[in-house]
């Protein structure tokens, strides 16, 4: 089954991005596909390559990048929400791309399910 995901909160401050990642990884392990994760609201803050979490903590941004590399997950950051919050191409981590809200609606149409994670 194709499962689309929306993430509405940034890394670390809320558990939303952690839960979304663990859900996505387990969905893929079970043989489903996660064609796209759409980052909206403060969720756009998951895409910056500038984060440096403590050594003994998980790296939320890198985990998303690796999921994109290993499983072809399309990580889309909303352009309008990103501009409001200072997310630009210059600081984008690998695997993320900036595009419009239409990509969220498209994921809703083309995936069998759309699951939202937020505050």
């Amino acid at each position, binding site marked *: 089954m194709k*499962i689309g995901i929306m993430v509405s909160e940034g890394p670390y401050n809320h*558990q939303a991005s952690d*839960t979304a990642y663990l*859900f996505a990884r*387990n969905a893929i392990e079970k043989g489903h596909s996660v064609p796209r994760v759409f980052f909206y609201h403060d969720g756009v803050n998951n895409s910056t390559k500038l984060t440096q979490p403590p050594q003994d903590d998980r790296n939320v941004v890198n985990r998303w990048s690796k999921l994109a590399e290993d499983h072809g997950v399309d990580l889309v950051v909303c352009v309008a929400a990103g501009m409001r919050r200072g997310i630009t191409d210059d600081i984008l981590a690998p695997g993320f791309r900036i595009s419009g809200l239409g990509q969220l609606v498209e994921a809703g149409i083309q995936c*069998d*399910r759309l699951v*939202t994670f937020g505050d």
Partner: protein
Amino acid sequence: MLHIVNKSATERNSLESALRMATKGSAVLLIEDAVYAATQGSVAAAKIKSAMADVQIYALGPDLDARGMSSRVLDGVKVVDYGGFVDLVTEHNSCQSWL
């Protein structure tokens, strides 16, 4: 339909709204801070108990473990892992997150 609730019922109103809108036979999955509502002794447990007549209540095990609440889960609440969360999403025809 699968209703997903992620906030503590002693802090916010989202569990109450989800239960009000959950039709007979639908499922409610508690994740993140929402899992506290499915534990013995919480004032929120009364809401879960009365809802169980009409809907199936699930709670995410890893979130219960992380909060030291695994041994306190109410009878009748089914504990699932992330794989079980995925199954719930695929088995129901749609899902809604009560943020």
